[in-house]
């Protein structure tokens, strides 16, 4: 049997295949490639194999994001030789590979979101232009002290062209070019672009991967151009020091020729500088604290989860953590009823609010959904979930939807303008008596004010809606705070509440006649949802939010 390897192909064939994959192939070359492929089964097979690998690489981000992908695990277990070499040379400055990679992917995820914002869609979200763009994201913050509440920041905040001022504490800023800045306060950093920043004050460590080579950091008396490396900069009360931990930087100073500094070099930029004796932020310690904090948050959430599961008013409680590799999501409400477990289709298991510790389901693809059957009759509804919406692509974006939308069945969703909607079918056999000709079955939708725009993209939010037939009100909540409460008028009283077959993250089944209307997949992820046979009070919703949240929302 002939060996069918890429390397056995003619050089031009190899180049054409690469050019085809990179979408840079010239029409004449593509014709030639196709002629050769028609003639050679081996060539066809190699193209399929190569393209298969190409596609698999395109899905890396999904795997990496789930934090359980083989790439991350392997890296944590066995740092490759490159890292090992570095460990020998510079023991202090080794980034903990796995965590750094996670941070890296997180930044990239945001880059994707900000880049994929289609300007054509912005008009639909209202008059104000959403501000989803940025040059960097605040990855982590520890023990921050702010000059004023107005300049305080949260982890996950995007930074545009603006100042970041930290009185004390440490922050990690991930630029969308791929560069990472760890900065210790007191600090004043001005972000100018994904490729440039100014440090007026602070202790800074920059890590610049090859893809971000050329990143510029401006110090008061010099400009540092990074040639793919790791370096530290201290700017404190007139003292300026720079130190190169790895790789090479170019130092530009007024009236002087650019000076190259290589691994191990340090320099006092100011007369009072003390080269080489600065204690730059140590990211290994930083990582450890970050992991500790996350673990503490996650453990406290687990305690909350276990106690909530015992709430007798629960109809269902899904936290999207899978048992093994199946597509089943258990209903955690006690006593356990396996018949009410959920099954997901096309939805993707991804990282939840604590990547690596907790899972979530993403409903990005049009057919994504989680289905379940919740039999019984109920006396009220409360829906509570943690959700991260990436964009509102559909006219209606499903949170939790009864299949047939028959009598007593709920529809909980977000409209494209960012308003939460909760409705329960009143009578599916007749039209709304107030608008008998509308063709609508008799139901009423209760809206919140807009609670989401593109600036919330990628942010975890706690959403809750309560249908209270006794208090005669429908209320909506965001992050534990009530955003609206509307009276249920006598005409719209609902007396029966049911669910039956239902879905999270989408509505209905794909055979419906009008897919544009029926497909309501939520472009985002959910990491827990609880459904109660009760109208939860304002205090209870606030309490659920407080107990289930983490330091980084």
């Amino acid at each position, binding site marked *: 049997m002939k060996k069918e390897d890429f390397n056995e192909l003619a050089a031009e064939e190899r180049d054409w295949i690469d050019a085809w994959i990179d979408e840079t192939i010239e029409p004449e070359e593509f014709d030639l490639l196709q002629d050769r492929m028609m003639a050679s089964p081996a060539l066809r097979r190699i193209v399929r194999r190569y393209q298969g690998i190409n596609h698999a690489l395109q899905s890396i981000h999904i795997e990496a994001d789930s934090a359980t992908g083989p790439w991350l695990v392997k890296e944590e277990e066995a740092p490759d030789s490159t890292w090992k070499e570095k460990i020998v040379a510079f023991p202090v400055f080794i980034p903990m590979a796995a965590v750094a990679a996670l941070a890296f992917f997180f930044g990239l995820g945001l880059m994707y979101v900000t880049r994929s914002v289609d300007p054509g869609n912005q008009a639909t979200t209202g008059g104000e232009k959403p501000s989803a763009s940025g040059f960097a994201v605040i990855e982590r913050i520890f023990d921050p002290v702010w000059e004023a509440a107005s300049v305080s920041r949260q982890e996950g905040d995007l930074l545009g062209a603006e100042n970041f001022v930290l009185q004390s504490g440490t922050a990690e800023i991930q630029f969308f070019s791929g560069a990472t800045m760890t900065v210790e306060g007191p600090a004043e950093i001005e972000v100018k672009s994904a490729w440039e920043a100014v440090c007026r004050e602070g202790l800074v460590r920059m890590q610049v991967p090859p893809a971000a080579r050329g990143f510029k950091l401006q110090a008061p008396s010099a400009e540092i151009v990074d040639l793919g490396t790791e370096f530290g900069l201290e700017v404190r009360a007139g003292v300026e020091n720079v130190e190169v931990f790895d790789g090479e930087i170019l130092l530009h100073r007024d009236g002087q020729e650019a000076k190259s500094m290589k691994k191990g070099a340090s320099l006092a930029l100011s007369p009072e500088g003390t080269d080489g004796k600065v204690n730059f932020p140590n990211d290994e310690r930083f990582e450890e604290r970050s992991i500790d904090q996350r673990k503490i948050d996650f453990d406290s959430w687990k305690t909350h989860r276990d106690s909530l599961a015992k709430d007798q008013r629960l109809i269902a409680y899904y936290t999207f953590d899978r048992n093994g590799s199946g597509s089943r999501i258990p209903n955690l409400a006690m006593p356990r009823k396996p018949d009410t477990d959920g099954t997901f289709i*096309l939805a993707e298991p991804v990282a939840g609010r604590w990547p690596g510790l907790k899972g979530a389901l993403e409903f990005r693809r049009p057919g994504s959904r989680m289905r379940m059957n919740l039999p019984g009759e109920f006396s009220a509804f409360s829906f509570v979930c943690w959700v991260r919406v990436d964009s509102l692509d559909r006219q209606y974006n499903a949170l939790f939807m009864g299949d047939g939308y028959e009598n007593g069945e709920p529809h909980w969703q977000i409209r494209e303008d960012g308003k939460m909607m909760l409705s329960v079918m009143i009578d599916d056999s007749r039209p709304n008596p107030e608008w008998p000709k509308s063709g609508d079955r008799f139901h009423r939708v209760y809206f919140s004010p807009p609670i989401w725009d593109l600036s919330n993209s990628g942010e975890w939010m706690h959403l809750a809606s309560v249908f209270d037939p006794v208090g005669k009100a429908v209320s909506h909540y965001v992050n534990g705070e009530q955003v609206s409460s509307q009276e249920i008028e006598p005409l719209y009283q609902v007396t029966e509440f049911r669910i039956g077959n239902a879905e999270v993250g989408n509505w209905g089944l794909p055979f419906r006649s009008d897919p544009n209307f029926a497909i309501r997949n939520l472009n985002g992820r959910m990491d827990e949802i609880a459904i109660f046979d009760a109208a939860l009070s304002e205090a209870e919703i606030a309490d659920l939010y407080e107990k289930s949240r983490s330091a980084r929302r």
Partner: protein
Amino acid sequence: MPEPENLSDPSDEHYEIFVQRFTRYEPDLRRFIGSLLPDWSDTDEVLQQTALVIWRKFDQYDPDTHFMKWACVIARFEALSYRRKMARDRLVFREELFELMADEGADEVSERRKELEALEVCLAEMPGKSRRFLTLAYTPGVKVKDMAEEAGSSAAAFYMRLKRLRRKLLSCVESKIQPVGNQG
């Protein structure tokens, strides 16, 4: 706002079987479709369409026959009609070649699976920096072209590096899937 009437209630059992089979073979189907189309989002779209058709025709599926074979026939058809829709695209194979690729690809499902397993091993063996570069280059929505443009002068270097790493991975995969002693 009008809500369309529920057409009919699907039998739960029927749906369960569909969900179970489809979920199980979805990655294979994706790889099959992916070997025919250059772009990831095209693959996504065809897969989506295939899922809808499979569900619509699911009552015609004989549970005693092989699901993947049956699904491949549908996926092949959907990929072909997608190809016709975007025939103007200069990166799409001409129809006779496309069909040939589809027919042969349908028989290579388990081969693709082995390659993917090998790829995971190869990626894990790769230096961390290379792996990160690949991840960056392959982040959806980030085209190498754009990355290169932002980085200015090193545009060609980006492509070269990407190409080199990808070829290296391919060689690594090939070395793992092809038995030694089979050369020549």
